[in-house]
C-alpha cells in the first residue's frame, strides 16, 4: 500500500489552491493593524529598480515616516498575492497595480479613490504638471482610482557601430515602418560566408507588446470604445500583424529568441536593433561594448504609442494609515523624486517639470535619443482597463501572434479566431 500515499501527492496542487480559497469565505472584515505598524507597500520592482525604490523609501522614512517596501517578485506574483490578501481581509496599504487589475479591486470595495486626497487637506502641487495621459488611464467611472507611479514606453535600442558599418546614419533610428524593414535587412550580415546570417538586423521574443504598438501606430485599437469587445482583428490589426510577420520572419532579417535572450544577443553585438521598454536601459547599462543609440519606435500611419508600466493603488484601511500612504505617493511624485526615480530606472517621470530637473537633464544628455523617446508620451494612449484584458491578451499572444510568427497561420484568420476567444475571456464575470 506504499503508493497510496503517493496517490495523494497530486492533491498538493489542489491543496495549495484551496489553502488560498479557504480564506475566501470571509466577509471582508479586516484587522487594519495598529497605527504603529509600518505602512506596507507591495511592489514588483527587482534588481536595479528595487534598489532605487528602496533608496527613495529610506529617504521618505528619514523624515519620520514608517513605510515598509516589500518586493513580491514578478507582477504576476504581486497580482496573486494582492488578490489573496484582499480575499483574506489583510491587504497592504499600497500596491503597484495595472489598469486592468483595478476594476476587480474597485468591485471588491478595497480601494480609496484618490479624489479624496487630491481635494483634501494635503493636495498635490499643480495637478496640471502631471502628464494628462496618466490620469486618463487612472480614471474609471469618473473617479481616479490609481495614481501614476512607474510608467514606461517602448523604445528602440540600436548599435551605432553596426549602423555605421552598414552605411546607415547612426544619428537616429528608423523613422517609418518601411525604413524599419529596410534597416533590418541591410543590417543582416553573413560574416563567415556559409550562406546563413550570423548577425541580424533585429531580434525579438514572441510578445503581444510589439503587436500592440504596431496596431495603435496603424490607427487601430485593442478594445472597442466601451471596452466590451476586442477590436484588434480590425483591418488595421491584420495589416499590423502582416507587417510584424514580414519584419520578424519573412524578410529573414530578424532573430526570434526565447524569453529575454534577445537582449543578450544585442549586448553581445550579434543583433543591431531591439525593441524594449524604456526601463530596459537600467538592465543593459554598462553591459555593452559599442556605442548605444536610443530612439522612439518607428512611426506607422500615425505617431502613437501605448503607455506601459503600473500605477499605485491605495487600500481602504484606517484614516491615519491612508493619510500616511497618501503622503508617500504625493512625495514620490513630486518633481525632485520623480526625476530621480526616472533617472535611476528609465521609468518616465510623471510630471512635465521633471524633464527640466538637473538630475534628469544630466541623464538626457548622457543618452541623447532618450528625450525623443520619452516624448512619445505626448502621443501615447493608455492601457485597457477591462479586467478581462490580460486573459484576452494571453489569447492574442498565443493564438494569433505565435502561430503567425511560427508560420502556422495567416494573420487575418489567426486574429479573427483569437478575437472570438478573447471576447469570451473579456466578458467573463
Amino acid at each position, binding site marked *: 500500500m506504499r503508493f497510496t500515499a503517493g496517490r495523494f501527492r*497530486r492533491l498538493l496542487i*489542489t491543496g495549495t*489552491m*484551496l489553502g488560498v480559497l479557504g480564506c475566501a469565505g470571509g466577509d471582508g472584515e479586516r484587522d487594519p493593524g495598529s497605527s504603529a505598524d509600518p505602512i506596507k507597500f507591495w511592489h514588483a520592482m527587482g534588481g536595479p529598480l528595487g534598489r532605487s525604490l528602496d533608496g527613495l523609501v529610506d529617504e521618505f522614512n528619514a523624515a519620520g515616516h514608517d513605510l515598509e517596501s516589500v518586493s513580491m517578485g514578478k507582477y504576476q506574483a504581486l497580482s496573486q498575492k494582492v488578490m489573496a490578501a484582499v480575499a483574506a481581509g489583510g491587504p497592504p496599504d499600497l500596491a503597484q497595480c495595472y489598469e486592468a487589475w483595478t476594476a476587480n479591486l474597485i468591485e471588491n470595495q478595497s480601494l480609496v479613490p484618490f479624489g479624496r486626497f487630491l481635494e483634501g487637506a494635503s493636495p498635490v502641487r499643480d495637478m496640471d504638471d502631471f502628464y494628462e495621459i496618466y490620469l486618463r488611464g487612472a480614471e474609471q467611472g469618473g473617479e481616479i482610482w490609481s495614481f501614476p507611479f512607474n510608467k514606461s514606453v517602448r523604445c528602440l535600442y540600436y548599435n551605432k557601430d553596426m549602423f555605421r558599418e552598414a552605411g546607415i546614419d547612426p544619428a537616429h533610428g528608423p523613422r517609418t515602418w518601411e525604413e524599419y524593414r529596410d534597416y533590418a535587412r541591410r543590417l543582416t550580415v553573413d560574416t563567415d560566408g556559409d550562406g546563413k546570417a550570423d548577425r541580424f538586423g533585429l531580434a525579438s521574443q514572441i510578445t503581444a507588446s510589439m503587436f500592440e504598438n504596431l496596431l495603435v501606430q496603424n490607427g487601430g485599437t485593442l478594445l472597442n470604445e466601451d471596452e466590451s469587445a476586442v477590436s484588434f482583428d480590425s483591418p488595421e490589426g491584420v495589416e499590423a500583424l502582416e507587417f510584424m510577420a514580414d519584419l520578424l520572419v519573412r524578410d529573414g532579417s530578424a532573430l526570434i529568441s526565447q524569453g529575454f535572450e534577445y537582449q543578450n544577443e544585442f549586448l553581445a553585438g550579434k543583433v543591431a536593433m531591439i525593441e524594449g521598454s524604456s526601463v530596459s536601459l537600467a538592465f543593459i547599462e554598462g553591459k555593452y561594448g559599442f556605442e548605444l543609440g536610443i530612439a522612439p519606435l518607428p512611426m506607422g500611419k500615425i505617431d502613437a504609442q501605448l503607455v506601459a508600466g503600473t500605477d499605485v493603488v491605495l487600500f481602504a484601511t484606517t484614516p491615519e494609515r491612508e493619510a500616511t500612504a497618501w503622503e508617500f505617493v504625493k512625495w514620490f511624485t513630486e518633481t525632485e523624486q520623480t526625476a530621480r526615480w526616472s533617472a535611476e530606472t528609465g521609468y518616465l517621470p510623471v510630471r512635465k517639470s521633471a524633464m527640466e530637473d538637473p538630475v534628469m537633464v544630466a541623464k538626457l544628455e548622457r543618452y541623447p535619443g532618450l528625450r525623443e523617446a520619452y516624448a512619445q508620451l505626448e502621443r501615447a494612449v493608455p492601457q485597457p482597463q477591462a479586467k478581462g484584458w490580460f486573459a484576452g491578451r494571453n489569447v492574442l499572444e498565443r493564438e494569433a501572434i505565435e502561430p503567425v510568427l511560427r508560420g502556422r497561420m495567416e494573420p487575418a484568420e489567426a486574429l479573427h479566431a483569437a478575437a472570438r476567444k478573447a471576447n469570451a475571456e473579456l466578458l467573463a464575470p
Partner: protein
Amino acid sequence: MADLEPTSPLQRGKWGHVMPYLFLLPAAIIIVTFRLLPILSALAVSFFDASFGKIRGFVGLDQYAKLFADPEFWNSAVNTVWFVVGAVPLSVATSLFFALLLRKGIRGLGLYRTIYFLPVVTSFVAVSMVWKLIFHVRFGLANALIEKMGGNPLEWLEEPTGIFELMLRPLGWDLPTWAEGPSLALICVVIVSVWRGIGYNVVIFLAGLQNIPEHYYEAARIDGAGRAGMFRHVTWPLLTPTTFYVVVMTTILSFQVFAPIYLMTGPPVGGPLGTTNVIVYYLFEKGFDAGGNMGYASAVALVLFAVILVLTLFQRKVVEKRVHYA
C-alpha cells in the same frame, strides 16, 4: 499491529486500546487538514462560480460542461497523455537497466549510486535551466554534437512539429496533423523528467533486486540457464512487485508534471504553439494566472483526480494480477 505481543505495555491498562489511535492522530490531523479537506472544498468550489476571494453563485455542473467543451483542455489532456506514455516506459526501462548494472559488485559502486541519485536531490529549477541551455538552438550542446556528426541541427524546445512527422518527413511522408505525435519540445521535457527521476527508481529497483534470494540463481545456473534466461525466468518475475510499484508511482507523478513545463517552455509557457501545455499547467493558468477562475480550476483538478484514481484502481485490479508476490 500484528506483530505486537498481546502483553505489550501499549495494550495493557485502560488506555491500551486508545493508545494506537493517539499515535496516529498527529499525522491524521495533518492529512485531513492539508489533503482531505482541500479535496472536499475543491469539489465543492467546482460547483460554484468562484474567483480569487469570491464565490458568486451555484452553477451546478456548468464548469465541467465548459471544461469538456474547451479545445484547449483537450489539447492539454492529449499532451499530458503523450507525456505519460513517453515518460513511464522510458523511466522504468532505463532505471531497471541501470539498477541491473549497479547490482553487480563493480568497483566504486557507492560512487555510481551517488551519481545516479544526484539529479533527484538537485533543484528542478537548476536542472531545467541547465537542460534548457543544452537544448539551446544556437549555443546548445545538443546541436553542437549533432553538427559535429554532420547532422542538421534541431529546434528542440522551439519545435512544435510532432516527432512522428519529423521522423517520417525525410522519407517523403506527410502525416495528417492528428498523427504527428507529441512535439519535439514535449519530448525534450520528457527526457529531462526521466533523467531527473532515474536515480529514485534505481534505488527502489536495487532494493527489489536485493530481495531476490541468491539460491534461485544458483538453481537456474545448475539447470543451465544463461544470463538472458535468468533475467527472463528469475529476475523479471520476482521483481514484478517492485516494477509494479515503480510503474504506478511514475504514472501518477507524470500525470502531475508541472515544474519542467513551467521552467523550460515558452514564453508563452506551454509553447511552442501550446504543444507542451499539460493539464496541471492549464489548471494553474486558469486558476492563478490572468483568469483567477477558481471554480473552473477546481473542476480541472477534480477531473485529473478522477482520471488518476480510476487509472490507479485499474492498475491495482487488473495489472496487479500479473504480479508475482514471492
